[in-house]
């Protein structure tokens, strides 16, 4: 099956579309969109900050549009306060905090809050944890009572701790199946090292936690002097203060120490950790380095920078990696701003076969941000989005509460929030370049890739040194990636000369033809595959010898794209070079070991032709791929027998699903020997190839 079709899909779709279906109509003069109406001055919703005598902060956001009140109680202590052996403490505290107090069981609490139509949740992060309650305003006393009860008098019952523990363990197990989680866990550990932000819970640490430890953590950190209460919605300032004093006035002030943070340095050189996920059809890329912390005045320039680099579909990474190259469904970048050193990161999920190209392009975009000032149009678009979307983030009193609470718990002055728009508007291209040089470190980057190492390792090694690990993070030997052939026997003596002509259709329209010739040459064979697809011509010539020993393979492409590739088997290695169009693999030199049973492109169909096929059989034929430059594990699965009608006739045929090539293919091989292909379909493309004649 010609590989080029799998790589040239977009270009060919356009070429075939234009050729087969006529040119697009001429565009008429475009009308521009209406300009903005005068903007209303943005008035940040009013709020008032006070402090109770015991040190607890209180913020009240009064807004009577909706009969709802949201309560947020935060303490400035999170998982950063917990040593590595006890990782998971804060998450477990958050799960169990609302599951029992001195006077109420978990069931009673949930019946009361849910019974009122409200909600009560606890949550935890690196820097803080908290409890939130939302109630209809005519149930406000209940909201305050339950909030204070779980915050001040939780008991962490053993049975509830066990239930929560099981749930967290199940979630951790589920994460093993999620490449995004695997990537970010590894990434944070590598960027932070022993720093508290790099400590992540594991099944072992979660199993070791006791209810007594949860109680102790709570007692040490839930203190009035360490806490902030935000009340937002349908309540007056006076009533909110009165209820706060009633429920929290007696809370002990305490004296909670902040966690000790150590400096986080970028690594000396860029390195890649490759987490092997066998069979992965995509690779998850995560690239980054230490970033800024709360209070850093560079925050606004960094916001503009990450927005234009990777904030959405209107950003560089998306436009280049997705729109231009078609490598990914989405690519993004961001920087967080915790109390201590945060991270800058860029991420994308890309098709396996373009992993190295996509990573290389991503790195070059990072460099570009540092090396070139951004054009005015991009700068304005990014700023316009940030400033324009600010009101959507403060539409409800609860949203205002979260914004104010977060600003305060990070220890920031309130202007940090109120002046967001003017500060963003003032960011210049020089500012963006300056912060890029400070916070984007492509030459000292931590890169984590989760994908099929068998396919991507070689390409990644050309970008940076690679450390190979398994799904659990344990070091993996490269030999574990070796591709193996199945034990199927192929009867070389049964190979017979043939000329097969095929018709190629695209979206049901005839767009070309393919001729396959198999001719004897001495005691070996030469298989030629000539494909005409619209104006494009691809000729593949493969030579092999007795026992299906590969000899050589050449590829010539001409028409709208041109190029050549050739590879031979010499001294147990596939050696050669390619000068192909970028979409077909680009320019490469090949020199890889040929595993036992590995063949060259085009041989697999001849071998299947003389194999003993039967429904349910799965045959692995490793083969060298000029596009990837590696020996790939290709599997042929006979899923059934169907009668197929093609121009050459009606044939009972084995339906064979092929995986491991650039894209999955389905072939129908004639049931009668030799099992010549009578039809192909490329999964994901409207291309069908059907046998027209046999000689």
């Amino acid at each position, binding site marked *: 099956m010609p590989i080029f079709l799998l790589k040239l899909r977009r270009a060919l779709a356009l070429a075939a579309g234009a050729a087969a279906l006529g040119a697009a109509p001429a565009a008429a003069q475009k009308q521009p969109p209406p300009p903005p109406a005068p903007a209303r001055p943005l008035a940040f919703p009013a709020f008032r900050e006070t402090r109770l005598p015991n040190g607890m902060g209180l913020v009240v956001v009064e807004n009577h549009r909706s009969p709802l009140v949201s309560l947020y109680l935060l303490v400035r202590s999170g998982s950063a306060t917990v040593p590595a052996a006890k990782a998971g403490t804060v998450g477990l505290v958050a799960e169990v905090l609302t599951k029992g107090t001195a006077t109420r069981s978990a069931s009673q609490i*949930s019946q009361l809050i849910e*019974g009122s139509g409200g909600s009560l949740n606890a949550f935890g992060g690196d820097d803080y944890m908290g409890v939130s309650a939302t109630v209809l305003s005519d149930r406000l006393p209940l909201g305050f009572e339950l909030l204070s009860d779980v915050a001040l008098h939780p008991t962490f019952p053993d049975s509830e701790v066990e239930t929560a523990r099981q749930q967290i363990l199940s979630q951790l197990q589920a994460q093993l199946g999620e490449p995004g989680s695997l990537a970010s866990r590894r990434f944070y550990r590598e960027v932070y090292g022993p720093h508290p932000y790099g400590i992540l819970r594991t099944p072992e640490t979660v199993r070791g936690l006791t209810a007594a430890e949860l109680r102790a953590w709570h007692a040490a950190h839930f203190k009035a002097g360490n806490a902030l209460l935000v009340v937002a919605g349908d309540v007056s300032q006076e009533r909110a203060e009165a209820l706060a004093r009633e429920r929290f006035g007696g809370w002990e002030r305490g004296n909670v120490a902040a966690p000790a943070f150590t400096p986080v340095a970028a690594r000396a050189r860029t390195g890649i950790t490759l987490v092997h996920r066998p069979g992965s059809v995509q690779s998850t890329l995560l690239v980054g380095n230490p970033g800024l912390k709360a209070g850093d005045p560079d925050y606004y320039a960094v916001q503009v920078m990450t927005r234009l680099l990777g904030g959405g579909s209107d950003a560089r990474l998306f436009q280049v990696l997705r729109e231009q190259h078609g490598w990914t469904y989405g690519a993004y970048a961001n920087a967080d701003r915790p109390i201590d050193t945060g991270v800058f990161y860029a991420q994308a999920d890309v098709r396996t076969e373009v992993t190295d190209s996509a990573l290389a392009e991503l790195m070059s975009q990072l460099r570009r941000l540092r090396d070139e000032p951004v054009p005015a149009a991009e700068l304005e678009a990014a700023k316009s989005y940030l400033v324009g979307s600010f009101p959507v983030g403060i539409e409800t009193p609860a949203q205002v509460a979260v914004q104010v609470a977060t600003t305060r718990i990070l220890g920031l002055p309130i202007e940090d929030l109120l002046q967001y728009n003017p500060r963003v508007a003032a960011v210049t291209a020089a500012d963006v370049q300056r912060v890029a040089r400070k916070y984007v470190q492509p030459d000292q980057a931590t890169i984590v890739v989760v994908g099929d190492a068998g396919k991507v390792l070689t390409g990644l090694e050309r970008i940076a040194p690679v450390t190979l690990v398994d799904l659990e993070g344990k070091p993996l030997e490269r030999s574990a990636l070796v591709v193996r052939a199945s034990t199927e026997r192929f009867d070389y003596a049964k190979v017979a000369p043939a000329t097969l002509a095929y018709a190629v259709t695209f979206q049901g329209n005839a767009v070309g033809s393919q001729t396959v010739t198999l001719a004897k040459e001495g005691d070996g064979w030469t298989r030629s595959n000539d494909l005409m697809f619209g104006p494009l011509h691809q000729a593949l010539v493969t030579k092999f010898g007795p026992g299906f020993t590969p000899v050589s393979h050449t590829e010539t492409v001409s028409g709208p794209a041109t190029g050549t590739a050739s590879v031979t088997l010499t001294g147990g290695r596939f050696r050669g070079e390619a000068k192909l169009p970028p979409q077909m693999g680009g320019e490469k030199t090949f020199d890889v070991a040929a595993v036992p049973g590995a063949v060259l492109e085009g041989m697999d169909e001849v071998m299947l032709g003389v194999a003993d096929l039967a429904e349910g059989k799965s045959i692995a034929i490793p083969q060298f791929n000029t596009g990837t430059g590696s020996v790939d594990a290709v599997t042929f699965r006979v899923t059934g027998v169907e009668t197929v009608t093609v121009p050459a006739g009606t044939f009972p045929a084995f339906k064979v699903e092929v995986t491991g090539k650039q894209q999955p293919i389905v072939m129908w091989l004639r049931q009668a020997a030799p099992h010549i292909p009578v039809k192909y379909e490329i999964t994901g493309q409207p291309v069908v190839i059907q046998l027209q004649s046999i000689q």
Partner: protein
Amino acid sequence: MRSTIIRGSAAAALALLGAAGAAAQAPAAAGRVQFEDYKLPNGLRVLLAPDPASPVVAVDVWYAVGSRDERPGRTGFAHLFEHLMFQGSANVGKGEHFQLVERAGGANYNGTTATDRTNYYQVLPANRLNLGLWLEADRMRSLAVTPENFANQREVVKEEKRQRVDNAAYFGALRAMLNDSTYSPRGCFGYAHSTIGSMDDLNAATVEDARAFHDLFYRPNNATLTITGGFDPAEAKRMVQEYFGSIPTGAAPPRNSCTEPFARLPVRYTFNDANAQLPAIVAVYGLPPAASPDMAALELLNVVLSGGESSRLYERLVKRERAASQLIPFVDERQGPSVALYWIVANQGVSADRLQALLEEEIARVRDQGVTAEELEKAKNQLRASVVLERQTALGVAEALQTAALNHGDPGFINRSLDAALAATPADLQRVARQYYATTNRALAVVQPAGAAAPGRE
């Protein structure tokens, strides 16, 4: 003992909840939406619900077309169109819609395809209402359904299908259970296939098919435009007339019938899922259309069964038995026959059979013994709160108006939506439990991590 706890705390609980009467008498004015409802001569229905204090506006267009309007051999069109609608129109280039909206400060925008409707919305700063209206009018009038766009977006849709269904745990089963595994293809083809369509149908479709679909369904007479948030009604009406007034009307589109939706129930399936780490079950019950007089009681019943941690299923399966790690309920209220779905993922070491047995016990208890007055009060409060929460944002109000217009034929239903629920009695809930939550009215899927069992329908 659980029953003792309930009895002992009932009095205290009811005191804190407020007497039973108070909840039923909750002021109807709370959350009342004032709106205007009119039609342009070309049939476009316009709903305006201004909120002067809001700093944003939501522009939300619903086309009354969804997967239920597709015919066999041509599935996936409604969803494909959701993609096509962002590929450009006469005055908007390919991909320019996103750019224009984002650069104007639109952080919340999207289009989604459902069984009964396709929606397109954007939340913008209040001074950019004109942009939202201009964009929606341009693509309603002059969407570029070209061979190139069609072919490109078809590939994107197929890639999306591969990513979502093939890569995410449980999604294949969930998707099937919401359509062809539960609904009868012969009796209700419209609902008995997945919105994303089949690969074969997508491959076989031509751009002429796409244009015909567009001409039938993407017309002002098949659309409702809702504007909410901080805008001036007179100014909005002027802009609506200016941008949408000259779009030509179309013929009334045909509608598929759904005469025998649940003919195949009861039915049981097994799915193998290579991405799933733990077994799960998905149980689906056949419900009436959203406008049915039974729907209020069913919504309340669903809250009692699965609304929150004090619900019947959560208490029993997650807390008491520790059999489930997740319980996710989803009631899909449709214009036609609806479904209630319960997705329950096992804890480590627990089998799908155990989840099924526990589910059946709890459902049977409600059928046989009904619900308590306290549970009913609680459910009413939850519904009331969810309505208040929904109406807090401009987009929430817009979507609520649209749903009322589509499912009940009257946007004014938005201000009556709680009436039936607040008047419901425990007997109502037991009645609908017996009628709809019968095992004979159920589709059940067992999802096994790969290799655990033979797949198929039993």
